[in-house]
């Protein structure tokens, strides 16, 4: 347990210091959201209708793009080999790393959501709904994306290939995230059903992600 706590503390510290680049994700998120009005026009009514979708897409891309460094940096300086060889099960270590990554790179996105909601003409309730669905949904993105990050480090390939492999897997999260936010803002449908499915998706990926990532690390690093 202390080993896992130490791993989480270390990863967060590295991510937040110089060269870590966790906060670049927030900057990217902001840039994507600022770009949107240029594409669809400065129509505030339209923007507030598209708002949840834009925020979700931005968060999805931002969390995906920060992920490919999850194992790569550790692989380059050799600490990934130590983690693989240590007595802590690799699955737990992977889960700890993903949790640390979510705390360092995922939570700032959710904190930034209210500010970005202002830019998209969302009212308080709508922003709150989007932030809440992001809070429930982004762990799923991180834990599924971790599989892609593990494949990236074993294949020495990152970037576009991993995005192409992981993006289809994140479609359910996107569907239920946007559906739950829309249901809270306008929809005749209840907020509960899509939101609980979103939470279920996060829990499922919490189980599958570490196992798949650990399997690919175990079989791939030699």
């Amino acid at each position, binding site marked *: 347990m202390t080993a896992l706590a130490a791993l989480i503390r270390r990863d967060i510290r590295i991510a937040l210091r110089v060269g870590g680049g966790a906060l670049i994700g927030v900057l990217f998120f902001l840039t994507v959201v600022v770009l949107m009005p240029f594409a669809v026009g400065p129509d505030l009514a339209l923007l507030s209708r598209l708002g949840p979708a834009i925020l979700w897409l931005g968060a999805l891309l931002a969390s995906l793009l920060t992920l490919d460094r999850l194992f790569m940096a550790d692989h380059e300086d050799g600490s990934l080999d130590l983690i693989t060889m240590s007595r802590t099960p690799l699955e737990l270590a992977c889960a700890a790393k993903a949790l640390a990554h979510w705390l360092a790179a995922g939570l700032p996105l959710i904190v930034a959501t209210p500010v970005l909601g202002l830019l998209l003409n969302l009212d308080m309730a709508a922003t709150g709904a989007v932030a809440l669905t992001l809070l429930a949904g982004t762990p799923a993105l991180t834990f599924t994306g971790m599989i892609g990050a593990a494949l990236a480090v074993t294949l020495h390939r990152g970037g576009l290939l991993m995005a192409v492999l992981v993006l289809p*897997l994140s*479609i359910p999260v996107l569907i239920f995230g946007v559906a739950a936010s829309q249901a809270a803002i306008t929809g005749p449908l209840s907020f509960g059903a*899509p939101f609980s*499915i979103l939470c279920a998706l996060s829990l499922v990926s919490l189980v599958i992600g570490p196992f798949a990532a650990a*399997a*690919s690390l175990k*079989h791939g690093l030699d």
Partner: protein
Amino acid sequence: MTLIDLANPTRFLALSARVLPWLAAATVILLTIGLYQSASAPDDYQQGATVKIMFIHVPNAWLSMFVWGVMSVASLGTLVWRHPLADVAAKAAAPIGAAFTFLALLTGSLWGRPMWGTYWEWDARLTSVLILFLMYLGLMALWRAVEDPSRAARAAAVLTLVGAINLPIIKFSVDWWNTLHQPASVMRMGGSTLDKSFLIPLLVMAVAFTLLFVTLHLAAMRNEILRRRVRSLQMMQASRVAFSSEVGTGSREENASKGAA
């Protein structure tokens, strides 16, 4: 005869060489029967002659999912039993599965044009097949991205299994998404159960297409084994050339003359 006996690629090559002609002949015969039957099937009272696209479209759609299942079993073989032919099977199946998926999408869109009035409709079923097609392409890109086949095999196996778990979830969520956006405005095919005059040709075609897949898959596996042999022979030769050129210039000339001969 167990799966372990097939672990020897030479034995697999010999056995598949004996089986392949029979499989190909059975495929041709069944396809001929199925095509004849589907051509002589009566027109639908609502859809007219276009209903005949179904006899091509449905087997393709069925196989698009079946092939992913085959690849998942092969991936288990790679990761769990380290069966030497499992990754060959998984690699050979991916392009074939992508082709079946593409044909299912293509025939579906050709069918949709006269029926729905549009080539593409964001219908739940169409959308999930499109996502399946994207995942096939991603998997093929992964196979092509890495030179060492065994390293690529393990990565592809992990991804295939993750996909096998995720595909039903994606299918379910796309269904949910679609019913949310547009309730039952799309005309669904086959509102009633299929008539026998349609069902029998369809089943024959389904079996014929499955046989077609098995034939193509075996042939592709043979090609892949031979391709790997050629690759390892080329690497051996390359290392020999590199080694002899290190030893002395005399042997390099000897090699050059050998290469010319």
